[in-house]
């Protein structure tokens, strides 16, 4: 599904990513963990084209996508959420999701302004799909609330819902559990699992909550100082001394 070859990225002297390569299997949940500043968010930006890499190749669904605009990449079926929530705060929950449908709809200024039949049809359909998504992520009761008025936990879920509306093949989640309490984190884990199994969407997850990471991922990649220091299943990673030293710390220290 996704193949990274030698991704490097530098910010004025700071080497945020150096020669990162790995592949993500279709239909899996892959976690990306590592200390603060390891380059995880930078990597997600590189993959989604928001901040393209200096070097290396991103192959998505068999095609090279680096160099393409984030918009094009999104339309090819790659969607994401953000570490610092990036919701459209002045819009309602439903509207936020409908915007996600934009990648799959067409009506422009004239068609909308003149209410051409196809635009109206499209509008009805996006509304319907979006409401279904709200049901799916269990936010229907907030349908007409402003997104900025939701508690953080639900905002994180809403971002996932908005990303789902673009009908992605690959979903990148950047710290979706940050600011969530235990119960919400558990619900989030369930949601991610459902998205994987019911919708067959491949997921890359960046997260510091190890309980969540260990319980839902198939494979884990560990970054440190912009380099991949380990890859493996949750069990392997938990035992890896390098990872323990760099990131996990001794259990119950």
């Amino acid at each position: 599904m996704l193949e990274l070859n030698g991704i490097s990225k530098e910010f004025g002297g700071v080497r945020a990513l150096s020669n990162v390569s790995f592949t993500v299997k279709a239909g899996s949940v892959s976690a990306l963990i590592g200390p603060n500043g390891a380059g995880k968010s930078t990597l997600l930006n590189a993959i989604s084209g928001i901040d393209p890499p200096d070097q290396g190749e991103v192959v998505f669904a068999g095609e090279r996508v680096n160099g393409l605009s984030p918009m094009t990449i999104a339309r090819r079926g790659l969607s994401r959420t953000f570490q610092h929530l990036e919701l459209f705060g002045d819009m309602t929950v439903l509207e936020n999701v409908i915007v996600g449908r934009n990648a799959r709809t067409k009506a422009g200024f004239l068609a909308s302004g003149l209410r051409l039949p196809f635009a109206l049809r499209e509008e009805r359909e996006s509304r319907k799909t979006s409401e279904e998504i709200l049901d799916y992520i269990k936010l229907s009761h907030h349908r007409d609330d402003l997104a900025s008025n939701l508690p953080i936990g639900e905002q994180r879920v809403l971002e996932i819902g908005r990303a789902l509306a673009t009908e992605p093949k690959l979903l990148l989640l950047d710290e979706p559990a940050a600011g969530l309490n235990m119960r919400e984190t558990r619900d989030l884990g369930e949601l991610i699992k459902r998205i994987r199994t019911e919708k067959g969407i491949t997921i890359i997850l960046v997260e510091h909550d190890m309980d969540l990471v260990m319980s839902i991922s198939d494979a884990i990649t560990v970054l440190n100082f912009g380099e991949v220091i380990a890859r493996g299943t949750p069990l392997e990673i938990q035992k890896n001394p390098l990872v323990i030293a760099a990131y996990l710390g001794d259990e119950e220290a």
Partner: protein
Amino acid sequence: MLILKNVEVFYGKIHAVKHVSLHVRKGEIVALIGANGAGKTTLLSTISGLIRAGSGSIIYEGSEITNRNPDAIVKMGISHVPEGRHIFKTLTVEDNLLLGSYHRYSLKRSTLIKKDMEKMYSMFPILEKRNKQLAGTLSGGEQQMLAIGRALMAEPRLLILDEPGTGLAPTIVKEIFSHIVQLRDNHELTVLLVEQNARSALKIADSGYVIETGRIIVQGTAEELLSNRDVQRAYLGRDVDAEVKI
């Protein structure tokens, strides 16, 4: 050291904090636990003066600080690490830390403050490496470290922490907590702590309060709370019912 008596806070018509009274003793770490939207952030912001209390009184070291301006409250030795970090995004890391010491800054003290900055750098080495970088370009976790470091630069006697662990790697959270414990033990720092991970918060705390929809519903020592079944079920992630079934 800090006493809240019947504090109420409103957002327009929303009654966010209802008749809250609590007591933080000098040299104690007090944990405040509650679900999302319970009113924790609101309460902390009221203490530090960012939000005005509707009624009630807040007494700090014997003097009334209810609805004082935040800058006056900072000068009295209360420092607040807010939710959402609120670092100065377009200033450098160094300037952020320096501004932390704003209320005690004077030319005479500048070498002293330099030294304090070194301390922060040794606590968060990554910040030193990034010291000329604009704070807004730091990674999420680095920003959180900066927010904590900036608050410590004020040399507070009471530190208010609102979810300091958010976005931080597990090792760092542990480190920060052990620092806080050290500061309490060696410098009599008093801490009011809100943390989503209630278990780890209660582990370092001396006492705790549980707040739900704006009301304090349980209070006690940390041990009491850790062993309270309702608290366990609601906030410590332990599925008591399931365990019982097994």
